[in-house]
């Protein structure tokens, strides 16, 4: 039932608004609306009950193992939420002069400093509001760099075919053409193809390392050399930073600019879709172009750096400091981990992934890159099952839900057929991994025994398999009474 269906005309919930409807007769009639919007008229309890019950229809980290590759679904410490939501912090208006908001700024400044260390970059700006906005900031800085040198023939950004969709989309938003580079059979960038593609038109390359194929790009130094020699810059998509925290730094690999997905590596919640935070870090030469605002520290106090201080900035990507509350959560998380704890993240994320990869191989699954180490994630391909048994990766994913686990990422990266991208993260115990592995083995048996049942999955969720085609064809995006 929808909340609107609980609604009864004229019902009010008086505790939640001013006692009286203030007089607004000073406003000209012509600017007023004639009818109130038809929002639900429900009691406080109806709202609480409705949304509490809706929440129970979600899978989430707090309730299920959620090995969604590339998304780093790890435990979101409750302390991060509690202390980022202290009333004193929530009450702060974004336009409060810095000198009266030193508490928040201290956290942001220290976060900037920690992120510099973790990435090996020269400076960090926190304001991008998600990975994709970080990418935008990064590529915009690459553009600003070339523009500043009057190097205006550069029109292309190179993107491996395994890249996340945000990478090519970002290149285009920054006015570039996205050019795809193929992957070789071991999951590395095809260097010959790269060499062939590079030229004076190359503004830069966007890479994830480890890549979205779950392997570490071993020839990164060589790639950096090729790109830099052509006058291009290297962009690092930090979505997979969890794999290498404290092990190897993008700055040391030769990257010029990087975004981080704090909602992945720094464990801020995904919230059913967001908010995230996508700070960017840059090497020396891109410092002038960083997006504002940033935080600096001088004379014993924290100060905001804005457009006035940075004439060459690419500008502002949001009205204020981006998703500040998310940044505070990341800050708290970083302090809880400390330097040692951060290194361990990569250790155990990698251990978990390699363990699962080996055990799933034993159970009869095929890996996309069987000769490679898994990083914090790995890819399994169900090509054989699709062909022999007629069950697709999608079918098996839906069946996994019936076992009480969220499914891995399916059909991404696009170049591996019928694939699962599996990322267990470091916060899952061996017990959970084993339970998932057993479930996968059992489902494989089911595919042999009763493929039709698997293809009809899920069987135990609030709804059975949904008709996505109908959703797109018969658009129903807004509820209408008696529709």
């Amino acid at each position, binding site marked *: 039932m929808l909340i609107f269906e609980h609604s009864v005309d004229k019902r009010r919930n008086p505790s939640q608004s001013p006692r009286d409807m203030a007089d607004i007769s*000073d406003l000209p009639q012509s600017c*007023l609306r004639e009818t109130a919007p038809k929002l639900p008229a429900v009691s406080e309890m109806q709202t609480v009950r409705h949304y509490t019950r809706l929440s129970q229809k979600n899978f989430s980290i707090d309730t299920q193992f959620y090995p969604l590759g590339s998304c780093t679904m790890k435990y979101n410490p409750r302390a991060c939420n509690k202390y980022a939501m202290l009333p004193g912090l929530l009450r702060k208006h974004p336009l409060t002069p810095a000198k009266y908001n030193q508490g928040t700024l201290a956290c942001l400044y220290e976060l900037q400093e920690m992120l510099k260390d973790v990435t090996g970059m020269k400076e960090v700006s926190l304001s991008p509001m998600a990975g994709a906005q970080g990418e935008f900031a990064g590529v915009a800085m690459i553009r600003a760099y070339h523009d500043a040198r009057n190097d205006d023939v550069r029109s292309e950004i190179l993107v491996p075919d395994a890249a996340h969709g945000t990478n090519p989309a970002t290149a285009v938003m920054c006015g570039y053409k996205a050019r795809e580079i193929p992957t070789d059979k071991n999951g590395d960038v095809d260097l010959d193809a790269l060499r062939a593609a590079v030229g004076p038109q190359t503004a830069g390359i966007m890479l994830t390392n480890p890549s979205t194929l779950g392997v570490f790009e071993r020839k990164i130094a060589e790639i950096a050399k090729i790109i830099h020699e052509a006058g291009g810059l290297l962009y690092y998509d930090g979505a997979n930073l969890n794999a290498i925290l404290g092990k190897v730094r993008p700055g040391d690999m030769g990257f010029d600019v990087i975004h981080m997905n704090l909602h992945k590596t720094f464990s801020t919640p995904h919230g059913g879709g967001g908010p995230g935070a996508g700070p960017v870090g840059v090497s020396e030469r891109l410092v002038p172009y960083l997006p504002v605002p940033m935080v600096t520290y001088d004379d014993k106090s924290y100060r905001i750096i804005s457009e006035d201080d940075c004439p060459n900035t690419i500008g502002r990507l949001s009205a204020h400091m981006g998703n500040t509350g998310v940044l505070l959560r990341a800050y708290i998380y970083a302090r809880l981990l400390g330097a040692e704890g951060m290194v361990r993240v990569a250790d155990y994320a990698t251990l978990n992934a390699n363990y699962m990869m080996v055990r799933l191989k034993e159970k009869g699954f095929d890996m996309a890159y069987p000769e490679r180490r898994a990083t914090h994630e790995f890819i399994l391909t169900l090509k054989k099952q699709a062909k022999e048994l007629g069950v697709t990766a999608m079918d098996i994913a839906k069946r996994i839900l019936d076992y009480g686990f969220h499914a891995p990422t399916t059909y991404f990266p696009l170049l591996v057929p019928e694939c699962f991208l599996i990322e267990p993260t470091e916060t899952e115990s061996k017990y959970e991994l084993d339970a998932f592995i057993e479930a996968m083995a059992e489902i494989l048996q089911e595919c042999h025994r009763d493929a039709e049942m698997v293809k009809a999955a899920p069987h135990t969720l609030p709804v059975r398999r949904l008709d996505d085609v109908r959703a797109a064809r018969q658009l129903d995006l807004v509820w209408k009474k008696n529709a």
Partner: protein
Amino acid sequence: MPFIPHTEAETKTMLDAIGVDSIEQLFDEIPAELRINKLSNVPVAMSEMEIGRLMSDRAEQDAHLQCFIGAGSYEHHIPAAVWEITTRGEFYSAYTPYQAEASQGTLQLLYEYQTMMAEIMVMEVSNASLYDGGSALAEAVLMAVRSQRKKTAKRIIMPRAVNPNYRRTVRSIVSSQNIELIEVDYDKASGQIVIEDGCADNNDISALIIPQPNFFGVIEEVDALTNWAHKHNILVIGVVNPIAMQLLKAPGQWGESGADIVCGEGQPLGIPLSSGGPYFGFMCCKEKFVRQMPGRIIGRTVDVEGKQGFSLTLQAREQHIRRSKATSNICTNQGLMVTAATIHMSLLGADGLARVAAASHKNTLSLITAISKIDGVKVAFNNPCFHESVIQLARPASEVLDELIQYGILGGYDLSKDYPELGNAIVICATETKTDADIAAYSEAMHAVMHDLPIASNDQ
């Protein structure tokens, strides 16, 4: 190990299963020369108790100022239920609902949200959020340009009366796409947008941005502006305050055919001020433009048994399907904020939100009426304002604001940087959270500051 459940014995078993001796060995594909072994600028771990105390101390600093700043972010009452439910693990710690069957909670909520926003704006469709008001406006500009492919140039009228930080954001985001942003001025008496008559003569303008209310709190002549734009084949992008829309004419009803795209900052709908974020941007449009819309959209459909269900739809607009041809690069959005806003709107209802809007209007009016009686304080514009108003002072604004702090009052936002032509001007706001006593305290403090009186003692 914080948040890592492995014991030594388990680690050993797992390493044995993999066939390696140490975790270190799992990193053997990383070139040795790139490896680091420790982080030098990350401090040692704190316990939750320690970080809790640190954060509490930091949160206490300047925690008790009465806030009279609006300027894009508004302090409104938020029912306790909003965040108690929003932060339930099942909402808080879920990912984007890619597996629809395991995410019906979030998906149904988003569908309800889309419906509520469409209702408020009187528009046909809504997406499921963008980052914030500023970036939503940038996306609206890009969307308008995409929808006006036949135009010879990409020109957008972006009045100076639009929030300056939104204008900056738009500029940063659309600048690489050869879009020209034309800034038109406001009338010095009324504070309303003025558009020169000939400016649309070349038929090369894609869209006009209309803020309602505008950054000065002034109510715009939306009908006339909309009709003018449509007459010149210019799309109308409304950038509106959702609380104001409870009382003011909705964008879908502007002029003869309504705004084409509406966007804005969702923060006033249940999101705490929180130093500027996370907030969320909303966007609605006419159905004919829906395939140009950026961001997630949820559709209602049925399952194999015919039961109602919800899923992400029109994904062919999005980066994960369409890649370089997507309508936007947005992926992660502001889902949790929308969760809060949906619960907030459900708790207040149309009646409650209208009361909030009216009380905010009334309080602001009371405040400016009171302080404009003070020597050296005057209201800048003669047109009605909604819940903000520009005040001109006989002393430098920054000095006055600094002195108001001594009275525990954040007195407004200094306009001298963005609108130097207004002189010592500030924009102030008093929402429904302000009591008569708060308003009186502001006005007494302003009186004292303007007349250089000593600060009254706080203890009685």
